[in-house]
């Protein structure tokens, strides 16, 4: 382990700055990627929900139409 600079003087500010910035940027980037993934999931759910709402409305209007047809048939009989 003699390669490790234990007790070596601290890095000068300009050199240390890029490492510190790197660490904090990596953290923020990870957070951003996570939020982006969650946003994509949310969009997909919203699309599915819209699709299901449309399907439910179509079915409800179809059932209503079928109900009025049945009423007309029974009235004829």
């Amino acid at each position, binding site marked *: *382990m003699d390669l490790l600079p234990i007790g070596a003087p601290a890095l000068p500010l300009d050199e240390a700055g890029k490492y510190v910035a790197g660490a904090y940027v990596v953290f923020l980037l990870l957070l951003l990627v996570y939020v982006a993934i969650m946003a994509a999931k949310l969009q997909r759910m919203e699309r599915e929900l819209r699709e299901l709402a449309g399907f439910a409305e179509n079915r409800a209007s179809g059932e209503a139409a079928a109900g009025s047809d049945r009423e007309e048939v029974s009235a004829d009989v």
Partner: protein
Amino acid sequence: MYGKGLKPLSIATVAAIAVAFSLVFFYAPLDADQGFIQKIFYLHVPLAITALVGFVIGGVFAILHLRGGDRRWDAYSYVSIHMSVIFGVAVLITGAIWAKASWGHWWVWDEPTLVSFLIVFLMYATYYPFRYAIEDRDRQARYASVFAIVAGAFVPLNFMAVRLAQSLVHPRVFATANGGLPGSMMLTFLVCLAAIALLWVTLVKLELTAKSASGQLKRLRRALDAPAGGGGPRIAPEVS
């Protein structure tokens, strides 16, 4: 249900992180030994502590699941572990950057602290394939809970073993005979730890809310007899 209180929690998290990072760069003094590079400590160590505690919390939720059989605890356990694995990635990357800056190497294989964290991380990385290799949902939840308990118990044991081991280069800062952090550094560290812990809680809640919404959507689709879209194997436990 899970989304309740998410908005104030998110605002509190953003505020806490802003305060914590302001303290790091404008209040905490420069370290006499490491200089500016020591600022990574305020990010790296809270992330590591939160990730390790998150793994243990995942184990506690797994115990609750096995005791009561409530699937909700399994989802909590899964999300806790999932979030801690993500935090673990951040720990490994920020740690490697710090190691490169202060030791001149991205990784040191004979340092117990680094290698033990990597072992814990890799162990939890196997949680996903282990979980989804089982198709039956009940068995999947049960076996995953057993895994989470055993692995969760390993985390503090591993931590103690590393603490007792002779460190080569990794510093021991807390509760050491050689002195700890000075007051201003300790305060900054504690605020950072609280902010990162709050971030973990917020993200866990967000993930649970998303999973709950997704589960409700699937129930709605089934109820409406819609053609099954994406009927492949699920990749996460359903929360309803």
